[in-house]
């Protein structure tokens, strides 16, 4: 009999089931063809109970937490009554449980003695699923129909037999079928491994106990989440942030607005007040908005809470349909990553109001997407997709990290040398840019720039960046980071180009992207002068900026701080800026204070 109160047997079971989810994730990771998938960890694996409730999810991409249940709901709606052993399901339709078209879900129901006990689940971001722009990530499509192959929930395997019609349809509609099929193979292999190991679990514990423990695993996560929420203050906090534009209606800002209501052991994340859905392809599905909300809230909860349904029960997420956080047909959504990142930052903003000493200022805004695609002389296609981010907002106790992925996506950078070996692209720079980080008692993360030189005759460059007009905010006296920037041919015409663009490029063209600097935390005049000196010595901060922002005078001949001059300068700045209270959120630089005598 299942005794779910046996804490020891339960812990052993929990260990086993999460190790299956991780093992699935490793299988996908190591055999994948897609760079997006591997380097961005843009995939997830999981385990759900017979009703599709998520029991365990492999630790890969925070941005996917919550996506598997939504997709499984749709599978259950379509096939709940007719499902049989040996079936495998495939889907990617954002308007029927999916997220955006490149994310293809594969599910396998797991049976024991004729009874469905669980689902093995995988979702992977594929290199290309067709559509008008290579990589299927275009940010300027205005309806889903332009974005690529839309796969409704379908049986890829019917009682163990593969449906070749589906495979041929996919093959003819994607640019790189070998890569897509290679990654589908990895997804199927992961499901197969899960099936095998789950069978061993059932053999050891018995079906009844396994079912009971899956329920208990969810309850356990709920208990942990609620216990942690209970320790946070009750109340209501709001935060507002803006995306510059959607790349179609240039210059029209998009509002993100969140209200956190924390009462007892429950948290409501309500996005009512967020802008209506937009023409450009940055509309979230609700599942993605949920993932963004969970990412923010989970980051202020203690570690060790399993990723499953139990978390979702304690953290409720609401976002009205037809908004940029919950798009409806025919919303384009291929590049919705941007909105996910920024909703995460928006939740962090609200959490910073709730827990001033626990949460960081705004980072660079999440990843910039850059894709370069086209055809070689022999008409074979190339697709280079790069996502990059790396500056963390300053924290109430430490500087923001320089060169570290955003919390929403634990991505890695592509190796430059591998990029150059495989694509007609040369990187001319990948380095920190000084004087861009937001000042503060703790400064924001330093952003970097990447310069891409194009080596093929002709190609299409597409860029999705943001934080150009709405800069990364600083907190509690900290300054905002400097805006992002894009340039064409920086060593030639050096033309400033929009944050979102699609354009033809030719051999020798150089595109430069500079990330936004991250926001600072606390009054810059309270920063330890030794830290200012260190940044100046490391050429992350100019001596002029050290004086203007921090009131610190550095002698660059001896590499020392002129303590007396610094003290006078700080006093001067303090008097002139005339703060009566420390500004809580800063979107723009404090008014410049005229240089005092040194």
């Amino acid at each position, binding site marked *: 009999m299942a005794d779910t109160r046996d*804490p020891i047997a339960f812990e052993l079971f929990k260990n086993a089931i999460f190790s299956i989810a*991780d093992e699935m994730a*490793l299988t996908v990771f190591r*055999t994948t063809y897609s760079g997006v998938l591997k380097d961005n960890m843009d995939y997830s694996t999981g385990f759900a109970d017979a009703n599709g409730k998520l029991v365990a999810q492999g630790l890969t991409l925070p941005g996917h937490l919550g996506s598997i249940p939504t997709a499984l709901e749709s599978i259950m709606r379509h096939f709940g009554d007719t499902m049989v052993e040996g079936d495998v399901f495939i889907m990617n339709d954002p308007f029927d449980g999916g997220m955006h078209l490149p994310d293809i879900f594969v599910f396998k129901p797991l049976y024991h003695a004729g009874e469905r006990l669980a689902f093995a689940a995988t979702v992977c971001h594929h290199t290309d699923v067709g559509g008008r722009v290579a990589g299927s990530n275009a940010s300027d499509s205005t309806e889903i129909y332009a974005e690529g192959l839309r796969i409704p929930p379908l049986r890829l395997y019917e009682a163990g037999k593969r449906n070749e019609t589906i495979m041929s349809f996919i093959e003819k509609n994607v640019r790189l079928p070998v890569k897509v099929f290679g990654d589908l193979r990895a997804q199927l292999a992961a499901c197969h491994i899960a099936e095998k190991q789950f069978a061993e679990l059932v053999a050891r514990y018995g079906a009844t106990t396994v079912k009971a423990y899956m329920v208990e695993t969810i309850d356990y996560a709920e208990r942990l989440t609620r216990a942690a929420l209970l320790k946070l203050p009750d109340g209501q906090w709001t935060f507002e942030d803006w995306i510059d534009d959607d790349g179609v209606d240039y210059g029209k800002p998009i509002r993100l607005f969140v209200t956190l209501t924390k009462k007892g052991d429950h948290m409501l994340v309500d996005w009512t007040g967020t802008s209506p859905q937009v023409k450009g392809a940055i509309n979230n599905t609700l599942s993605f908005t949920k993932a963004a909300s969970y990412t923010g809230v989970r980051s202020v909860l203690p570690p060790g809470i399993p990723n499953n349904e139990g978390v979702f029960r304690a953290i409720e997420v609401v976002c009205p349909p037809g908004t940029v956080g919950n798009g409806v047909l025919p919303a384009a959504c291929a590049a919705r990553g941007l909105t996910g990142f920024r909703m995460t930052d928006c939740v962090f903003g609200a959490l910073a109001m709730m827990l001033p000493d626990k949460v960081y200022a705004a980072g660079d805004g999440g990843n910039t997407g850059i894709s370069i695609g086209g055809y070689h002389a022999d008409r074979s296609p190339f697709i280079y997709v790069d996502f990059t981010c790396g500056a963390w907002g300053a924290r109430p106790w430490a500087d923001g990290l320089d*060169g570290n992925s955003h919390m929403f996506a634990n991505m890695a950078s592509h*190796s430059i040398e591998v990029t150059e070996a495989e694509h007609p692209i040369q990187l001319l720079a*990948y380095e*920190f840019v000084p004087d861009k980080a937001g000042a503060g008692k703790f400064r924001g993360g330093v952003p*970097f720039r990447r310069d891409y030189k194009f080596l093929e005759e002709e190609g299409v460059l597409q860029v999705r960046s943001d934080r150009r007009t709405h800069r990364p905010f600083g907190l509690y006296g900290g300054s905002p980071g400097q805006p992002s920037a894009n340039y064409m041919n920086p060593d030639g015409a050096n033309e400033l180009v929009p944050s979102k663009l699609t354009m033809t490029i030719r051999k020798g063209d150089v595109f430069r992207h500079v990330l936004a600097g991250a926001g600072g935390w606390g009054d810059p005049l309270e920063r330890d002068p030794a830290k200012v000196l260190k940044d100046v010595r490391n050429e992350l901060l100019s001596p002029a900026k050290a004086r203007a922002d921090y009131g610190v005078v550095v002698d660059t001949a001896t590499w020392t701080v002129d303590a007396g001059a610094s003290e006078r300068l700080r006093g001067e700045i303090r008097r002139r800026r005339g703060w009566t209270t420390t500004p809580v959120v800063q979107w723009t630089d404090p008014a410049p204070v005229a240089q005092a005598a040194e």
Partner: protein
Amino acid sequence: MTVTYRVGVDIGGTFTDIVLLGSDGSIHTKKISSSVDNYARAIVEGLAEVFHETGVTGGDIEEIRHGTTVASNAILEHKGATTGLITTKGFRDVLEIRTLRMPRLYDIAWEKPAPLVERRLRRVVDERIAADGSVDRALDAADAEQAVDALLAEGVEAIAICLLNSYANPVHERMIADIVRRKAPDMPLSVSFEVLPEIKEYERTSTTVINAYVMPIVARYLRALRGGLDRAGVPARLLLMQSNGGLMTSEAATEKPMNIIESGPAGGVVGAQALARAKSMSGIITFDMGGTTAKAATVENGQVSRASEYSVGGGIMIGSRLLTGAGYLLKVPAIDLAEVGAGGGSLVWIDAGGSLQIGPESAGASPGPVCYDKGGENPTVTDANVVLGYINPGYLVGGAVKLNADKARAVFTEKVAGPLGLEVARAAHGAHLIAASNMIRAIRSVSTERGRDPRDFALFAFGGNGPLFACGMAESLGMTRVVVPPSPGLFSSFGLLYADVEHHYSRTFRRLTRKMDLAEVNSAWDALAGQARHQLEVEGFTGAAARVNRAASFHYQGQTFDLTVPVPDGPVDQAMLRHLEEAYGREHERTYGHRAGVEEPVELVSIQVVGQGLRTGGGVPDNVRPSRAEPDAPPPRRAYFGPDKGWIETPVVRRSDLATAMTGPLIVEEYDATCVVLPGWRASLDASRNIALDRG
């Protein structure tokens, strides 16, 4: 006949272990406190003590084999050389930006490890090599001179050079190296093409920098040790254990200290490998459990499984090996170890969800487990084992440490059993099982995660706590055989005695197998093999004593992870390429459960050569005899074996008692470890005095 000795010396943070193995099979062991200020001193003094106790003299020593944490400590404590880095203009921050990834999700407090070379000591030069190796922009020599001068003016103690795409053409790196050698002939210098001629700039930069960073420290240490040995009248040559399980001379280690950084845990695995070969065991999983962590590795058909890179100070595995980004990346071959934070000192606690948890926090050496009576207040795994009757409170380290069993029971009652509503033995047993299940994750990550079924392997258990858990873990994994070597607690230093001299070389060589220029690949391989042979010759290995093996890494075109397969001797021709494609496909299927069709292009990624210097004097004798006498047979005691079996009056025996096979439950008590034999298992001794446990 004179008895000569081989010496194994393993330095840990707390203890230095010395093992002497005589050509007649005699063994002398010595455990002394490490001299942290000068590790060499403890070795020399320890040897002097052994000489004094045994009458062995310096002249009787044939060879000293040494595993050391000197280099890894320098990295972990940031006490390496002040190092300068010269790199390509535009790429000054590759070292610091790393891969962007962090090892933890949802952690606002994450701190990136500080770069080993601060930005101001990273200088750029104007030059560019293209991906195909052509010179895109010639090196500006004046610029390079200036960069070197600037670093010298800053007083750097070592210089690393790593330029973009230098794996494809090292010409510019060589020019800069020449400038450094001209301006500062004695400057320790680490050049990426010489250190790691492989693609991926971050991996190569990080490895080249680590090599430079520890170079002066390792050189200084080896000089001091050599001097100490000479003064003590020990002229024997000194060999260093590498992270890959092979030995290298101290001269080679001085030049490429990056190879000896993770030498600590290697000894035990190599020892296990030698035993597996001697006993013709096709597969073993090593399980080494000490006070704070447990480590697992596999040996298949006599070969240790290796990883091509790892992180120094990357910390223990937290649930999954997917989460990378901790520590300092070092791309040199190393024994593939999975490590989890479970040891005797791991804390037992109850989380907010009411679940019993073990570690990863540890009570450490101080205050240690509650039963040590040194002020520990929180229950540990060792306390659980005392409550369960597995550990004899009067016989830890042969009775040198007395344990307070009552305190262990009291703390388990108060902090674990009470809150969970369980009786104390049940709670302690639960802690024991959960610790075992955490360690099983390490074993799974070196077996099932690579398509290996643990049931096809024997579990080889050592370390102070390994034999305590081995039987139960084997049972959970469906394994039917456990082997516990003699002196399990000292096995890591003992294992050093079994190793061979080894040098690993690899080079990026990306070519589709169907579009390969055979002459080119053969000449590239011959060049690597030539390097290996030359190095072996310098060290005195020639003819049959010098063996060169080849291997190659492949992937399906478009994949980024590779798998390595052995390459037979002889020239590479079309037939061999077909053979290698097939071998790769089979390995892919075995590891991941699937493979691509034959039409899918296979890409060669890197070529590898391992040069081995084989001992002429033969291996370790079979009849090893520890010098330490066994204690009197202890009385039986009550031990708890779970709710089904309950408390059982359990016989306690010495290793030698197993000359006659016995069945569990049984406790084998030794000076340095305790082995628990569960009911249903049969224990016996093999000819080499290994305890063999078989499930009946």
